[in-house]
């Protein structure tokens, strides 16, 4: 069963613009993670935010977490062609620590 749901399902932006993806989830979590998947490849871990954190940065990535709304957002600033990929949020559920993925956002960066 899906725990996280990403929004939008697909996003196309011009190179250099910022890309924002959202994730909503249903149950209490220990942490929320974002992953990237290039076509035909495995998933790559980008960033993890714990349930007691509200914001985290890593390079051009900014993640926010609102546990009251059970939602998270991933912001990629100054997008590049190489950012074209699918992005998934994954939640580690509280008490049973399973990692459950959403269906992802397909991001396409236009040259």
């Amino acid at each position, binding site marked *: 069963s*899906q725990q996280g749901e990403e929004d939008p399902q697909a996003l196309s932006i011009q190179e250099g613009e910022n890309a924002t993806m959202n994730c909503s989830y249903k149950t209490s979590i*220990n*942490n929320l*993670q974002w*992953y990237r998947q290039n076509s035909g*490849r*495995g*998933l*790559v*871990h*980008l*960033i*993890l935010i*714990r349930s007691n954190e509200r914001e985290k940065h890593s390079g051009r990535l900014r993640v926010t977490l609102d546990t009251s709304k059970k939602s998270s957002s991933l912001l990629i600033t100054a997008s590049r062609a190489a950012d074209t990929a699918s992005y*998934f949020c994954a939640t*580690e559920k509280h008490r*049973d*620590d*399973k*990692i*459950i*993925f*959403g*269906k*992802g956002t397909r991001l396409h960066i236009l040259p």
Partner: protein
Amino acid sequence: DARVTQTPRHKVTEMGQEVTMRCQPILGHNTVFWYRQTMMQGLELLAYFRNRAPLDDSGMPKDRFSAEMPDATLATLKIQPSEPRDSAVYFCASGFGTGSYGYTFGSGTRLTVV
């Protein structure tokens, strides 16, 4: 860089045949996940292990799927008998399971059952 190694990368088999997929987690990682990815269902959790002990395999069809960790360097996922609906990409991921780090995924096994 340390990698999670999955074999085979591709597998085409006939319906009814047994399929075994293998995963070598990163040395020192104590948690291993198996996922299946399809266009329709996305990434589905099949099973996961901590310190080689199975913690949850509720996502697996029990009558045909089995997952084991015979030792710390090998995790296996077996399908017997395989069916066309099992066609998917199967991923293994490993990590420390502490809730502080993410997980490292293998490149996957693309299974086609004809």
